[in-house]
């Protein structure tokens, strides 16, 4: 193979050399073989070990599902209970157990069986331990996770969970179930992603449950714009802030109806005389609030429904991934029969219903994350100035293991506020770096599982309120309906009692008046039960009207979704579950309705580019519904964006510091009512522009850009394409996601589907003597990309077809397959 014939003829003349060559040749091929085996068994960068990976027996081929899983009876060592898990036609597990330990043990086991990689990856990420498994490409992410105090918060939560015997029991039962599954695995049984990334699952411990819950706080309450607000005040002045951030649009419709009267006095809180001015132009960008993660929920009372019983709906909007963040499950044991979706890593059901009640959540945009500028005594950072004295700091050494490399030690300084981050100036290299401590709700001890434990078993309104009293973070709007006919909504979580506007700017770390001085008592959290309007709803907008006596934040979601829901619910009667499903799919855009008529009025028709007249007509005929088949939504989305940027970005671009951009609803209101609003003028030109000029120029720019991006004006411009709705794999592994789903919806519509984000679970529940639930999420029960069940619900989700949920009262006789634990 390796030697040419001529060479062979030459050496054959010499027996000695030939003999030597033969040894050489066999050693060489053997060496080559060993080298190849070694190479095919090793991961290079993101290329999996080829031999191991392609091995048809134990490599990725073993993950290709070739038949429906078979029923199994599992004789488990150390498990002396009794539980049966029945999988229905969508492979949703229905767990029937004799007691709570067995119930949560079985839940841990089946979650691990269907979603092991997700279960582990999410908690590794939350613990800042990704690099340990996948190498130094995750090191910076881990460092940031550690520096914002995620593991620190999880450790505190663990202590509180330990102190509650009930929580501790179920968290450990869940862990035992997960570990039983993990220890049953051979290398060929490992989920596909472990084979691609080349690592193995580790033992599950209760702190991972704490990590997962802190991760939800990071996702939903892990951002602020403190530095941007400070900068904006310094740069554009108080008046700008007042105009754009303190004044709410006239169409704003808070979650708790303004008719609600508050019959308590707020707990006192002391504010400083003047607002602290931090050193400007700091860089805290990575903590900025991610835009537009929101959700809807509502409940209508029986007087508005056909059945005479309340109906509840919920669709939490999150980043959409495969496998889906949610997993449907039914939990049945003495004292509990509950159905809904769980988060992988926590025992129990997060959003769902039981025989008597239903509940759901949306995020509360309250400000629970603040930066404090810190004054250290000297470079040792051993002491910091607070309340008129030098106080000692503490040190926490974060040990970040890195696969294939040396462990990184990162020392983080803690003050009583929280962990300290160093911020270099973006503008002035000479300036001394500033130090900022982070005060964040995720650093609080918490036992949020207890809330879900209670909700899963709640029989009425009082049980629901009792369950909510345990809840810390991330604050949620908990909607509720019961078969006793009650509907309710609590804006709930542990909320700091702040003076007005406290913490929306960077705070003074030396002055105790800037500390979180206390908490809003639980019973003072904004809430309403059975309001006169006969429905409750939330869509992340402002929690309560201005007469609510506590300050929560000045930054909530725009009014659009909330207003639309309330308008529709107010005018609907004889409501059915189907009507509620249709409302979840409502694509109406209040943004377009408030802005587009004005844009069309301003645009000068005699200076339009090619196709301009036709497009203009299209826009005039449009009904403001963000539907996939329409072209107008694409044009509106891009035109309104260009217009917004043309008005604001010239002024905002005159500095490099991060500034806070106005929300689009307030922007529309100002630009419509103030023809001479000074930002309309382009500061980069001599002349003074008008709205007409900006509207026309941005119209033409939009035509050109869409043509470049989507091709000639025509069907390729349909919103369903332009929305670019992707559901990527959790770890962004190519090929394991679903791209370019032709979808209706928009961030400002009730159906808040948009590129990579959207309704992660749609649920409608009609309570009553026989509770009926409907639901769908973009994914499938299985986390295995080699199973048809991995993404089988994407299409019904895209088209808004909810499945009737099989809520079983007793063990079923028909099922796809079952697992028995003995």
């Amino acid at each position, binding site marked *: 193979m390796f030697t040419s014939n001529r060479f062979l003829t030459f050496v054959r003349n010499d027996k000695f050399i030939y003999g030597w060559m033969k040894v050489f040749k066999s050693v060489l091929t053997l060496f080559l073989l060993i080298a190849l085996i070694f190479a095919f068994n090793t991961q290079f960068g993101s290329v999996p070990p080829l031999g191991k990976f392609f091995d*048809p027996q134990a490599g990725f081929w073993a993950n290709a599902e070739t038949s429906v899983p078979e029923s199994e009876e599992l004789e488990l060592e150390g498990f002396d209970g009794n539980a049966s898990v029945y999988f229905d036609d969508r492979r949703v597990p229905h767990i029937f157990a004799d007691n709570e330990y067995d119930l949560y043990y079985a839940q841990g086991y089946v979650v691990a069986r269907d979603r092991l990689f997700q279960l582990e990856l999410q908690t590794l990420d939350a613990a800042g331990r990704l690099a340990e498994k996948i190498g130094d490409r995750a090191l910076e992410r881990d460092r940031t996770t550690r520096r914002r105090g995620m593991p620190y918060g999880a450790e505190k939560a663990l202590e509180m969970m330990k102190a509650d015997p009930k929580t501790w029991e179920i968290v450990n039962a869940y862990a035992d179930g997960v570990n039983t599954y993990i220890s049953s695995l051979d290398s060929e049984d490992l989920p596909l992603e472990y084979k691609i990334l080349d690592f193995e699952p580790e033992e599950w411990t209760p702190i991972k449950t704490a990590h997962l819950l802190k991760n939800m706080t990071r996702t939903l309450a892990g951002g602020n714009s403190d530095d941007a607000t400070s900068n904006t005040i310094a740069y554009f002045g108080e008046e700008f802030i007042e105009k754009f951030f303190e004044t709410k649009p006239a169409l704003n419709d808070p979650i708790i109806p303004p008719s609600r009267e508050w019959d308590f006095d707020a707990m006192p809180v002391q504010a400083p005389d003047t607002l602290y001015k931090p050193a400007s132009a700091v860089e805290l960008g990575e903590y900025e609030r991610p835009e537009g993660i929101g959700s809807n929920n509502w409940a209508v009372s029986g007087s508005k429904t056909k059945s005479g019983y309340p109906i509840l709906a919920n669709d939490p909007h999150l980043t959409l991934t495969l496998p889906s963040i949610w997993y449907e499950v039914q939990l049945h044991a003495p004292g509990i029969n509950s159905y809904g979706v769980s988060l992988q890593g926590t025992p129990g059901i997060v959003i769902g219903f039981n025989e008597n009640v239903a509940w759901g959540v949306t995020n509360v945009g309250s400000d629970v994350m603040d930066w404090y500028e810190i004054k250290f005594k000297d470079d040792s950072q051993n002491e910091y100035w607070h309340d008129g004295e030098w106080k000692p700091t503490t040190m926490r050494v974060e040990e970040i293991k890195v696969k294939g490399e040396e462990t990184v030690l990162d020392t983080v300084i803690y003050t009583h506020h929280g962990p300290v981050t160093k911020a270099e100036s973006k503008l002035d290299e000479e300036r001394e770096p500033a130090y900022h401590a982070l005060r964040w709700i995720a650093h609080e001890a918490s036992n949020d599982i207890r809330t879900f434990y209670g909700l899963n078993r709640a029989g009425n309104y009082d049980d629901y309120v009792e369950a909510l009293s345990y809840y810390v973070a991330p604050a949620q709007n908990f909607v509720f309906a019961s078969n006793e006919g009650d509907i309710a909504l609590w804006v709930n979580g542990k909320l700091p009692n702040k003076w007005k506007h406290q913490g929306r700017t960077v705070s003074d770390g030396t002055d105790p008046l800037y500390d979180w001085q206390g908490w809003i008592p639980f019973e003072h959290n904004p809430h309403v039960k059975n309001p006169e309007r006969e429905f409750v709803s939330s869509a992340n907008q402002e929690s309560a009207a201005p007469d609510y006596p506590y300050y929560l934040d000045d930054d909530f979601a725009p009014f659009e979704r909330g207003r639309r829901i309330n308008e529709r619910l107010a005018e609907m009667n004889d409501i059915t579950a189907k009507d509620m499903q249709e409302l979840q799919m409502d694509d109406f855009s209040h943004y377009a309705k408030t802005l587009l008529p004005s844009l069309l009025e301003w645009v000068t028709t005699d200076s339009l580019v090619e196709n301009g007249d036709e497009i203009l007509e299209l826009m005039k005929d449009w009904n403001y519904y963000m539907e996939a088949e329409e072209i107008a939504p694409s044009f509106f989305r891009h035109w309104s964006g260009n217009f917004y940027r043309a008005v604001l970005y010239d002024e905002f671009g005159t500095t490099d510091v991060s500034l806070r951009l106005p929300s689009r609803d307030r922007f529309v209101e100002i630009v419509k009512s103030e023809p001479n609003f000074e930002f309309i003028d382009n500061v980069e030109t001599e002349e003074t522009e008008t709205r007409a000029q900006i509207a026309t120029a941005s119209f033409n720019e939009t035509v050109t850009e869409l043509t470049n991006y989507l091709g000639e004006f025509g069907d390729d411009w349909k919103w369903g394409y332009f929305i670019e709705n992707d559901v990527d794999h959790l770890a962004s592994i190519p090929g394991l996601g679903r791209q370019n789903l032709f979808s209706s919806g928009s961030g400002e519509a009730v159906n808040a589907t948009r590129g990579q984000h959207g309704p992660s679970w749609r649920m409608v529940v009609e309570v009553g003597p026989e509770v009926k639930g409907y639901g769908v999420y973009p994914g499938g029960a299985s986390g295995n990309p080699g199973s048809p069940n991995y993404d089988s619900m994407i299409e019904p989700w895209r088209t808004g077809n909810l499945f009737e949920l099989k809520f079983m009262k007793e063990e079923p006789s028909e099922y796809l397959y079952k697992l028995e634990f003995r």
Partner: protein
Amino acid sequence: MILLLLLIITGYLINLVLPWWGIAITGLVLGFQMKPKSGKAFGIGFLALFLLWGGQALYTHLVNDGILSTRIAEMLGVGSPLLVVLITGVLGGLISGLAVLSGSLLTNKDK
């Protein structure tokens, strides 16, 4: 022909108990025992595992409706799931061919 069949059978069996590189062991042993000519050794070794691994992969691909192989093809950027099947066969073939050749070279008498 016998060597080919033996390679396929032992390759399949050893893979049930040992990791993927088990096929190198059976290749080495059979190459050493059966003493194929060095030119043939590689070819037969390659063909055996190409057929075994490629066949196993093809079967899985078909029964699975190509769900996974299509995803892996996209992940690797190779375009077609059938290429993923082919790569599987070639990888097995390469290891096996080299193993049988190495085994045969350890014994080959002068000709």
